[in-house]
């Protein structure tokens, strides 16, 4: 298989990339890791006339924390960079848990977090993670930069809010109000498979009290689902068996799974509750572990 014919540009500045995209209009596509776009082009599900390869743009491979704790992930930061990141291992439990579960190790060498958000696959894992953390995407276009909250960024399956002449330059995770806890659990049939069910839980706690909670679900609806009622069941309380059970059942209710080759709707809904409970139980046990 090979893609249909297209023109190819590999600009060296963001400004040049934006100019090329503006000239290319609706028929231009950004190429980042290519791990979603190239397969789609080979299947001719995507047939852009112009491909703007952003891999030569300098200074976008970073992921770093600002002094206040805000985390920034550049458009060329690969899944593998995040998997091996000491910064995430120490400060971002939900992201650190998700990174090794994206695709397979070779795909992770090329694929990017920002590209995954842009791709807006309802089965993409990073969208849930970033949504649970209250993150946003920074887009750059001819008129400069704007920040788009993750809650608005995805407008439908494989659709995002970017204008044709905008590039997503980074993803931003706001600093935590307190201590961060959380995790990501994914049920997959084998390595490299998309999620049958994925659950992201991100908590910010002060002492035993949950000050902010985010719960998001992968693969159980037509898009990534923010389980807000489940998160609300935790906010302002400490983690107890009751609050955990309430969050788990609210998350299961928020899921919109469909029966398919990966499993029945009932099974998937059950797994949502199980995963929420499992992550939260682990979170509630953590301080005790540390004290030991």
């Amino acid at each position, binding site marked *: *298989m*090979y*893609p*249909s*014919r*297209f*023109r*190819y540009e*590999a600009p060296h500045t963001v400004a040049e990339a934006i100019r090329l995209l503006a000239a290319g209009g609706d028929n231009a596509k950004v*190429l980042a890791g*290519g*791990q979603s776009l*190239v*397969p789609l*082009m*080979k299947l001719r599900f995507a047939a852009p006339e112009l*491909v703007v*390869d952003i*891999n030569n743009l300098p200074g976008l491979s970073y992921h770093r924390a600002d002094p206040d704790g805000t985390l920034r992930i550049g458009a060329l930061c690969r899944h593998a960079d995040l998997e091996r990141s000491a910064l995430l291992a120490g400060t971002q439990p939900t992201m650190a848990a998700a990174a090794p579960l994206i*695709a*397979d*190790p*070779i*795909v992770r*060498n*090329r694929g990017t977090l920002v590209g995954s958000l842009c791709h807006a696959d309802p089965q993409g894992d990073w969208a849930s993670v970033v949504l649970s953390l209250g993150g946003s995407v920074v887009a750059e276009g001819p008129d400069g930069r704007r920040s788009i909250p993750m809650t608005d960024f995805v407008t439908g399956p494989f659709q995002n809010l970017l204008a044709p002449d905008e590039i997503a330059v980074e993803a931003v995770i706001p600093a935590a109000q307190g201590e961060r806890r959380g995790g990501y659990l994914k049920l997959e049939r084998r*390595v*490299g498979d998309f999620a049958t069910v994925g659950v992201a839980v991100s908590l910010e706690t002060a002492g035993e009290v949950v000050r902010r909670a985010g719960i998001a679900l992968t693969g159980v609806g037509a898009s990534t689902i923010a389980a807000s009622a489940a998160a609300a069941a935790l906010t302002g309380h400490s983690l107890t068996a009751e609050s955990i059970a309430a969050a788990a059942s609210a998350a299961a209710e928020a899921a919109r799974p469909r029966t398919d080759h990966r499993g029945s709707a009932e099974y998937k809904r059950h797994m949502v509750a199980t995963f929420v409970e499992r992550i939260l139980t682990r979170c509630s046990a953590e301080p005790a572990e540390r004290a030991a």
Partner: protein
Amino acid sequence: MQRRAGGKGGLIMTIVYSDREDEAAAQVPMRRIKFTVNGEKKIAEVEPRLLLAHLIRQGLRLTGTHTGCDTTNCGACTVLVDGQAVKSCTMLAVQVDGHEIQTVEGLASASELHPLQEGFREEHGLQCGFCTPGMMLAAKALLDRNPDPTEEEVRWALSGNLCRCTGYQNIVKSVLWAAAKLRAQAPAD
């Protein structure tokens, strides 16, 4: 453009495509790229839609790189680009402009097999051999980064490569065998 007569390193390579569309020749976008493959410098003129796997197999005639699934799943087409394992069926050939490619043909020297190749022979790491080049390059990327991996780390690093024959046990043993040999060869310091 320079063209050196003789010496295969100096030839400019041409890839002939089937023409299934009807643009005028001048409308067909072409890019000239420079890259290294297994240490040899190359120049190629490619249509941007040419995949790296095709450049390697048809253009360079290095057919040790296999294409299996052609859908980014199996890892048979794995090569190293600047030392990193990538699936060559999922990268455009134009993207290797200025970069270094390593294929399975680059592993052995004129007189000696690479320890990974020896390991696969010693530990029976292959049956039909279709997955083997991809396995060895994914393993090489691991050993370059981590010369003393655990069995679990080997399994993890190879989890993007499918084998339909061996059941993986002997592949893992082969890589561990190679890791031990490479460590023994490394200059002690």
